């Protein structure tokens, strides 16, 4: 990520775009934890409420999109901070590869939860 695959300007443009999309989905997430379709935070955290959202196609899609956007935005943000500390070929490559893999792991691990519920899994 970053060195050979895409120009830095494109990566930063994506950083802005994902940030704006995260703002919208984050607002929905915040509302869903406090007042939207629930009466308060405690009710939002009930097992039935959480699983109900994972098994609803609209909620699950929104969560998956939120996760994907966050995985990019967070780990590209970390990458930019780490590259500011030091610049040389090896460090740049190590940071790019590590952040890409870390973002991928978070995306896949979060997707696993959503996907398993959508496929009828869970206890």
């Amino acid at each position, binding site marked *: 990520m970053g060195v050979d695959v895409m120009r830095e300007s494109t990566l930063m443009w994506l950083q802005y775009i994902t940030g704006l999309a995260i703002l919208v989905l984050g607002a929905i997430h915040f509302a869903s934890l406090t007042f939207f379709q629930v009466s308060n*935070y405690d009710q939002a955290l009930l*097992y039935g409420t959480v699983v109900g959202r994972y098994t609803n196609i609209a909620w699950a899609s929104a969560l998956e999109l939120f996760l994907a956007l966050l995985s990019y935005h967070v780990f590209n*943000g970390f990458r930019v*901070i780490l590259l500011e*500390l*030091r610049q*040389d070929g090896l460090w740049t490559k190590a940071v790019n590869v590590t952040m890409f893999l870390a973002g991928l792991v978070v995306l896949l691990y979060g997707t696993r939860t959503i996907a398993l519920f959508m496929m009828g*899994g*869970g*206890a």
Partner: protein
Amino acid sequence: MPASKTIRNMRGWLAGWFRVVQVNFERWLYALHRLAGVIVGLYLIAHIVETSETLVGPEAWDSTMAFLKNPAAHTGLLIIAAAAVYHGLNGVRLYLAASGVGIGRPVRPEWPYTPVSLTSSQRNLAWIFIAVTVVLIIYAFYQLFMISLWGWM
């Protein structure tokens, strides 16, 4: 400069972000923006692991939620909520400023050479976003402490 030469940022991590030489409101907002982003980013990793507990079953989930229902954990959540709201709203201000919105027009440099961008409408926007952030933090406090922990409703 040879391509292989290592360039180190001698300003360091957090110390560098917050080492603001001249009083510059926007510079402080940017340092806080980064700190808030790192906090939320690290929380994402913990949150992904936490929510995967639902796959184990209702007992595991309820047990995790019970473990996290205490003043220390809710204070942590309040800090994360504050960081997320601040990072999001200040991010909009940065996006607008980077796009040239609210930073004024270039003027002839005259003493005391204050950049027009630091006195233009983006600064008002910053205060509006800070006010909204504070309101949302109060609402998060209401949900996390007054309702969830103290059971006022």
